[in-house]
Structures are given as C-alpha cells and as structure tokens.
C-alpha cells in the first residue's frame, strides 16, 4: 500500500533521467525531405508553444515592467508594457523604507533565516530517517510509511488551530523563528519520501562492499550512501527552503508584529483597505522571487543528474 507513494515523488526525476536515452522517434536523424504536412504541423506546434509560453511568462513580465513604473503610470488606462518613464523609485522606497512603515529588510532577514534554518533542520532529520526506511526492515516500518502517506492529506487548516494554541501556550506566538519547527516538520513526510527514493536508487551492493571494506552502519550511511545522493539532498533542501520561503497560512496566523513578519505576510502590508500600492508591491515581489528563481534553476539541474551511473552494471 505504501509502495504506491514513493513513485509519486520519483516520477519526474527517474523518468526524466530515463528519457535521455529514448527521445522522440517520429523523426529519425537524417530523414530526407519532409512533407508539406509535416512542415505545417511543425509550424503549428511551434505556434502553440510560443503562445503558451507567452501566456505563462506574461504575468511575470508585466510585474517586472510595472515595478519600474510610477504609481501614476501604473494607473494609466492604456496598455503599455514598457515603462514610459522608467524609475527605480519603487525599489528605493522598498529598500530604504522612508516612511518606517514597511520594514522590508526585517521581513527579508526573517524569511531568509527561517528558510535556511528550516532547510538545515529539515534535511538533517529527513536524511537519516529516509535512510533507515530505505535500508532496514524493522518493526513498525510499514506503520511509519503509512502514517507519512496520510499526513500528506492533512489540511493546514486542521493543524492550524491546535498549532496556534500550542504556540500560544509555549509562548512562541509572534516569533518568526518559531515557525521553523512547524515548517521543518510539515515538510518532513514529503522530504523523507523523496529522499528514500534517492536512497533506494543506490545499489545495496555498495553498502555491502563498504561493510566488507571495514565500515560500520554509520560509516556506510555517511561515507558511501550519502555522498551518492547529493542531488537528492539538494532537491530536498530546495524543497524545504521553498516551502518555508513561500508559506503563508501559518505565518499569517502566527505573526502579528510588523517587524516579525516574513515576506509573504509582509508584502500583504502594501494592500490597504482602499487600494494597493502596486509600485512597491511589484518591486518587492520581484525582489522576493529572484533568489527562489535562482535556486530553482540550480535544483532543476540536480533533478536530472544521476551520480550512480557507472558503478553498477553497464
């Protein structure tokens, strides 16, 4: 029953890796003349893809260009993609906070700190747990796997109230760093499943070779298997970082003090009862997105790279 789940996380990674070998077959290399039908089909394909890509990228582009417009220009009712009078004023306002109402740097520090610590804690407890689930048969293993599967269905809304009370009673309410324990834990089941998949891909023979070579159980874990799953660790780390960086529900419920907010909640301050400061909101959004974007591109590469190639069989 629990076997169904590990494939989930794996579908994209392993299949992508496999896919490198078998690409498309409809066109063989060096195929001679292409028929007109094929050319029309090809043009249509490209047209559809270009339009789709445009639609998918456009919202981000619009935000980017608007962030260089003044609020007056933003409220202009003619469509102009490019700013007519490009200005950095929004960015300056965000970063210097002249009104002392929007402590962007505090939010950013909170977010970064929370995300990094979540990542470190999340990875360092998911790693050994996933290893045990991958390598050992022990009493209660099926129970652990099943319960982790079920936690994937837990709505944040259900945990919200008890966690709210728990945090209140432990005096943690309002402290951004207290969120770390909630984030690292709620990411755990998925992290463990992903990590277990990566561990499962490392052949057992390597563990055994390590044992014969003179390692103990910890040595096998730390010196043989872990170094081979660095791509997996990167992906899990990224997942934890992203989760913490993007989390809104708990942060919104638990944080109240303006300087203690994380970015998702902080940015909401630019939304007022009678309007939105779009200039600053778009600029701030962009600043928030950039680090995640870079991380994403980096993690993407690791998704596909397999390190095990070569050790086992052809």
């Amino acid at each position, binding site marked *: 029953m629990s076997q169904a789940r590990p494939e989930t996380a794996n579908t994209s990674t392993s299949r992508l890796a496999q896919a490198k070998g078998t690409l498309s077959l409809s066109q063989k290399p060096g195929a001679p003349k292409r028929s007109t039908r094929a050319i029309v089909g090809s043009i249509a394909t490209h047209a559809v893809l270009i339009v789709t890509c445009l639609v998918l990228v456009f919202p981000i582009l619009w935000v980017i260009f608007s962030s260089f417009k003044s609020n007056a220009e933003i409220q202009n009712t003619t469509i102009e993609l490019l700013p007519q009078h490009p200005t950095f004023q929004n960015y300056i306002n965000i970063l210097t906070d002249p009104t002392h109402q929007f402590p962007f740097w505090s939010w950013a520090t909170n977010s970064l700190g929370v995300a990094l610590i979540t990542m470190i804690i999340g990875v360092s407890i998911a790693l050994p747990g996933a290893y045990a689930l991958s390598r050992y048969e022990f009493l209660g293993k099926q129970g652990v796997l099943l319960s982790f599967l079920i936690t994937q269905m837990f709505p944040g809304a259900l945990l919200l109230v008890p966690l709210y009370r728990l945090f209140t009673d432990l005096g943690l309410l309002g402290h951004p760093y207290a969120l770390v324990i909630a984030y690292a834990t709620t990411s755990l089941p998925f992290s463990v499943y992903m990590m277990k998949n990566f561990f499962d891909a490392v*052949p057992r*023979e*390597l563990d*055994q*070779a*390590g*044992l*014969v*070579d*003179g*390692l*103990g159980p910890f*040595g096998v874990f730390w010196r*043989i298997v872990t*170094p*081979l799953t660095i791509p997996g660790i990167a992906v899990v780390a990224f997942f934890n970082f992203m989760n913490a960086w993007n989390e809104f529900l708990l942060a919104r419920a638990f944080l109240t003090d303006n300087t203690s907010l994380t970015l998702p909640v902080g940015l909401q301050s630019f939304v007022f009862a009678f309007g939105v400061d779009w200039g600053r909101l778009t600029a701030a959004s962009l600043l928030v997105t950039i680090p995640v974007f870079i991380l994403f591109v980096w993690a993407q590469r690791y998704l596909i790279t397999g*390190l*095990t*190639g*070569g*050790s*086992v*069989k*052809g």
Partner: protein
Amino acid sequence: MADVRFEHVYKRYGDNPPVITDLNLKVADHEFLVLVGPSGCGKSTALRMIAGLEEISEGELFIGERLVNEVAPKDRDIAMVFQNYALYPHMTVFDNMAFALKLRHTSHEEMQQRVERAAQMLGITPYLKRKPRELSGGQRQRVALGRALVRDPQVYLLDEPLSNLDAKLRVQTRAEISRLHQATGTTFVYVTHDQVEAMTMGDRIAVLNAGIIQQLGTPQDLYDHPANLFVAGFIGSPSMDFFEVTLHRAGDGQADIVIGKGDEAQRLTLTGKAAEIVTGQAAGADGRPLIAGIRPEDFSLDGAQSGNGTTISGVVDVVEHLGNEQLIYVRLPGAYVPESTETKGSTARLDPSVRVSPGERINLRVETGNLHFFDPSTTNSLI
C-alpha cells in the same frame, strides 16, 4: 589465511521453508572452492553468510578457529568481489582500491605500494585516477578484483564475478582469477551458476540445489561419478541424456536394459564397468525400472543397421555445427528430462565429418561401459 567451516547451518526467512538446510562444509586453507547451482539454490546466501552480510538462523560458522556468527563484516577479515562490481562511484579507482586500507589506518606509503602492485598485476595502472563510470565493463571488473587484492584477508569471496562480462572476457578473466589464487595462496570461495566456470577453476566444487549440498568433490569426480540425477544433469555441457529403462538380467553376470516402452522399445546390452556394478548390486533386480544416463560424447554414429544391442536409433530433430564437433538433437525412446538439465530431449555429440540431416533416422552406437544408473525414487546414483 584460514579455513572456513559451516556446521549445521540453516537460513530461514520467516516461517518459509529454509533456503539453506543443515549445511556442513569445510573449505580447506588455500583451497579454491566453488559453490555452484541454479539460481535460488542458496549458494549466494552461503557466501554472504561468510561475509557477514546475511544472518545465520541456526548453526555455527567458523573462519579459522574463530566462531564468527555474531562478528560484524568489518571484523571478519575477508575481501569480497561482487557480481555488479559495487565500485564506489564517487571515488577514483585508486581510492576505491585504497578505501579498505585507509579504514584500517594503513600508512600512506604502504597503501600506495599495495595499490600500485595490485594495479600492475591487473594491468589497470593507467586508470588509477579515473572514476568507475569512465571505465569499460572489463576494466571495472579488474578494479573490483584489485580492491580485494590489495587486502591481505583470510578468505576471498567472489560472488558471480564474471556474469556481467562478455564471453571472451569471461574466459580471459577466468584464467586470471585462477592465477591470482595461485599467487596469493589464500582461501577462495567462489559462487557461480555456470558449471563451466566451476569445472575450470575449482579445486573442489560443491553443487547446491534447494539449499542442500548435492555433492562435494573435485571437478573430475563430479563429472565421472555424479552422486545423483541432479549433479549428473547439472555438470557437463551439453547435459547428460537420461532414459527411463528396465533392467533385464540374463544370468551369469550379463544384463540388458530396455529403453522406452511398447513398440519403440530398444535393447542395449551392458558391458564393462556398468554391467559389473549394476548386476553386482541388490538394486539390480530383474525387471527393475531405472534411470540410465548417457553423456552426449558416449554416442557415435553407426552406419550399419546392426541392432545387436550396442546401438539405439532415433529421428534427428536439429543439427548444430560447431566446427570441431556437431550436436545432434535426436528423438530417442524413453527420454527423461530431470529439472537440472539445460536442454530437452537427447543430445549426441558427433564428429563434424559425418553427415546427418533433420528428419533422418540414425543409429547411434553407445559406449555402454560408461553408462550411469540412478534409482528413480531416490534419484541417487547406483554406481
């Protein structure tokens, strides 16, 4: 260097019948012992028990004088070559080979020295700085051997180390492993499913089936005197041909066997050793059903339709020319196929010069002195 002793060893998984039953085996010091058998016979399990990678459910295992049931693999002083090489992908060839030494805090110079010597023996010196994935299958195989070789263990364990190599490399590496055994003079335990490997490399061979040792002996022993139907069918390629026969005694130490039943029945007169042994036993009562075994090379083509008790005839199914010989698959009466054989029906190994074509009826002369006989109920050899 040490011997390895299994004493009444069992391996069970849960409540299933044991995969290894009452294993008693002594691998002598310096010996090259091959564990051979079909897949799932327990041979790898036995090997992995020596390594400590598999728990022992019952019984005792000794390496030298030491009881090792509860000893961790790292403290057993063994080296192992794995079927899929199990090279550490994140380490260079040098680091792969030096890893065990490093864990044992060997001095840097000695490590260097030992790895280089092993690399030289195996001809992999140019690859020491590479990662395993940059090597060909054969080169990886050598690194795997080298990793074991740099150690100075009590026992070398090899788990089907040649199964991923192509045919040509396999023959080459076979000889190389034999040479390494001679050079190191250490105990080798070698697991394979390939009886050719077993025959060519082992000082002694233990044939396993269903977790039980069927026979333990030298290669020649196993070939000449298989203890039962299983060993007879497993050792030798192509496999021994088996027939359901009935024994007919003609008094004065003479005996005939009738192969097949009814209209197809054919008669062979026993001679030499076979006749002596069968008739000398209580088992050889008149009219008793037996299983007779004939090695494919004990057939030869007989042009004459003699039928005087030295030939049997059958229709040719398929002819395979191998250059130095030809294999004839022929339909003979009473043919019996035990589970351990690789081919169905009967095979004759003939001189390449004779002409035989499918569909033809041929007479095959049998070396009746070399026949093997087995009890149909116990499958044990009567000889």
